[in-house]
C-alpha cells in the first residue's frame, strides 16, 4: 500500500518514512501541503501522515483539498499535531481528517492507527467493488430489458400489421373494430378478406394466456388464416367451409404428445357480400351477437372445442343472415370478463346495451369509454378486442335507433 508523509521538518519526515518502510509500506514524502496534494493526485496514495502546521497549505487545508478533489479511491489521512484542544480536533475532523496522532510520534501508536486506517480502506475497497459489480449487473439487466422491450415492440408492430387496415375488402359490407392489448403483445387477433368472386371471410380469435407465447400462437394462427398464406395448413377451399377450416387448423396446431399450455378460441365465418347470407363456426369462442336493424338481439350460442387441445375434433357451423341495418359483433372475453374495482364483471348484458344504442362505426369508441369507466383505468388485465361487421342500409346510413344515452349503464 502506498503511503505519503508530509512534514516541513526533514527529521520527522525521515523518521516517519523509515517506520512506514519497515512496516511494509511503499512510501513517498513531501515538505509542504501543495507538494503533498500533487503527489496524492499523481500517485496511488492511500494513506497520508501529515503535519498540522506547515508553511503555505496547512494540514487541515490539505484535508479539505483532498476531499474536494473527488479522487477515485478514498485517502485515509492522519494529522500529526501537538494540539489536543477540543476545538482543534473538531476543526481537523470537519476539514476531512480521519485520525490524529500526538507529537512527538510514538511508533507503536502510529502503527496501531495505521492498522485502523487499513481496516477502513479495506472496507471501502470491498464496498467499491460491490458497487462496481452492482453497477455492472444493473447495466446488463438494463441492456437485456431494452432488448426485450425492442423485441416486444417489433412483435407488437408485426401483430398490428395483421389487423385490418380498412374495410374496403368487404364492400358493400362495412366493418369497425376495437383493439386494446393488455400488454404490448396481445393474444387476440381478427381480420377479414375477400373470397372471390362474391364472398368474404372473417375471424376473431383469442389465445389463452397473454404475452409472448400467446402472441406467437396468435401470429401462426393469423398466418394460417390468410388465404394462400401458409402452405400446408389451410387448403384453399377450406375457407368456404368454416367447420372444415377449424377442424384442419386444429389438427395442425394440436400436439397429441405435448402438454397444453396455450390454446385458442376462434370464430370463423363467411358472408356473401351481396346477399348477406353467411355461415359461421366456432371453437369455444364467446357467442357472437347479432343486432337486427330493429334493435332485436340474437346470440349465436354455438359451442365447439378450442383449437389446439385435442387433435381430432369435428366442428359444426351455423347459417346466419345479415339484412340491411344488421350488425354482427365478435368479441373476446376480455370485454365481458373485464372487472370493475369492486370485482364485478362487465358482462355481455352491458356490451349489448352499448351495442344497441350506438352505430357500428361509433361502437368501438363508445365501448372503449364504457370499459375504461367500468374498470376505473385504461390498463386492462386481459386483451380487449371486438370486430363488428354490418350491412349498411341504402346510402350507407344506419338507423340511429333508440339513441338515448341515459339508457347506457
Amino acid at each position, binding site marked *: 500500500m502506498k503511503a505519503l508523509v508530509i512534514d516541513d521538518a526533514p527529521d520527522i519526515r525521515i523518521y516517519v518514512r523509515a517506520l512506514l518502510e519497515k512496516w511494509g509500506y511503499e512510501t513517498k514524502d513531501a515538505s509542504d501541503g501543495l507538494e503533498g496534494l500533487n503527489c496524492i493526485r499523481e500517485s496511488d496514495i492511500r494513506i497520508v501522515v501529515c503535519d498540522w502546521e506547515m508553511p503555505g497549505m496547512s494540514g487541515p487545508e490539505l484535508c479539505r483539498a483532498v476531499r474536494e478533489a473527488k479522487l477515485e479511491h478514498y485517502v485515509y489521512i492522519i494529522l500529526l499535531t501537538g494540539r489536543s484542544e477540543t476545538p482543534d480536533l473538531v476543526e481537523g475532523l470537519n476539514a476531512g481528517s480521519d485520525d490524529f496522532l500526538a507529537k512527538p510520534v510514538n511508533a507503536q501508536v502510529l502503527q496501531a492507527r495505521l492498522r485502523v486506517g487499513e481496516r477502513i480502506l479495506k472496507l471501502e475497497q470491498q464496498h467499491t467493488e460491490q458497487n462496481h459489480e452492482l453497477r455492472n449487473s444493473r447495466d446488463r439487466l438494463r441492456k437485456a430489458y431494452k432488448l426485450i422491450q425492442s423485441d416486444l415492440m417489433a412483435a407488437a408492430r408485426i401483430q398490428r400489421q395483421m389487423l385490418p387496415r380498412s374495410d374496403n375488402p368487404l364492400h358493400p359490407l362495412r366493418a369497425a373494430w376495437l383493439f386494446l392489448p393488455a400488454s404490448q403483445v396481445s393474444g387476440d387477433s381478427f381480420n377479414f378478406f375477400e373470397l372471390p368472386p362474391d364472398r368474404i371471410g372473417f375471424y376473431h380469435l*383469442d389465445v*389463452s*394466456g*397473454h404475452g409472448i407465447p400467446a402472441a406467437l400462437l396468435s401470429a401462426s394462427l393469423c398466418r394460417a388464416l390468410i388465404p394462400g398464406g401458409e402452405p400446408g395448413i389451410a387448403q384453399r377451399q377450406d375457407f368456404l367451409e368454416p367447420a372444415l377450416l377449424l377442424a384442419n387448423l386444429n389438427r395442425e396446431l394440436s400436439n397429441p404428445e405435448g*402438454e*397444453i*399450455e*396455450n*390454446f385458442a*378460441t376462434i370464430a370463423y365465418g363467411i358472408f356473401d357480400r351481396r346477399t348477406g347470407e353467411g355461415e359461421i363456426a366456432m371453437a*369455444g*369462442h*364467446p*357467442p357472437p351477437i347479432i343486432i337486427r336493424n330493429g334493435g332485436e338481439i340474437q346470440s349465436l*350460442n354455438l*359451442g*365447439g*372445442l*378450442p383449437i389446439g*387441445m*385435442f387433435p381430432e375434433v369435428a366442428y359444426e357451423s351455423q347459417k346466419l343472415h345479415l339484412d340491411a341495418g344488421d350488425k354482427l359483433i365478435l368479441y373476446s*372475453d376480455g370485454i365481458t*370478463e373485464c372487472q370493475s374495482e369492486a370485482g364485478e364483471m362487465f358482462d355481455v348484458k352491458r356490451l349489448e346495451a352499448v351495442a344497441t344504442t350506438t352505430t357500428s362505426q361509433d361502437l368501438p369508441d363508445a365501448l372503449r369509454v364504457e370499459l375504461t369507466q367500468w374498470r376505473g383505468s385504461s390498463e386492462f*388485465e*386481459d386483451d380487449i378486442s371486438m370486430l363488428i361487421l354490418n350491412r349498411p342500409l341504402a346510402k350507407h346510413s344506419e338507423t340511429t335507433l333508440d339513441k338515448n344515452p341515459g339508457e347506457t349503464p
Partner: protein
Amino acid sequence: MSLEKRTQNSVDIVKLPEQLMMAGAADVRTELKEIISNGSGKLIIDLADTTFMDSSGLAVLVSCLQAARKKDEDVCLVHMGPTVSALFELTRLHTVFQIFDDEQGALSALT
C-alpha cells in the same frame, strides 16, 4: 398456495379455489400435476367453491386430463356450478370430461 386434498380408495380428491384465473392458474397447475404424478393418477376435482374460471383455468384442467390419461387414468369433475358449466358447454369440454353431481358417482366411475 395449497389446495385442499384428501385421498380415498387411492383416488385423490382436490378442491379448487373460488376463482381459477390467469393470475393463480400456474400455481394450481403445478400443484395438480404433482398430485397426479405422485398419486395413482385417479383424480376428482371438486368445483363446489369455484364460481368463476377463465381460459387459463380451462387450460389447467385440460392439462390435468392429459397427464392422468397418460397414466391410463382419468379426471372427474364434481359439483360444477352454473357459470363454469356454461363455459364447459361453450367449449364443448363437457364432452371430454366425466362430470358428476356428487363425489360418490365420480368415485365409482374411477374405481
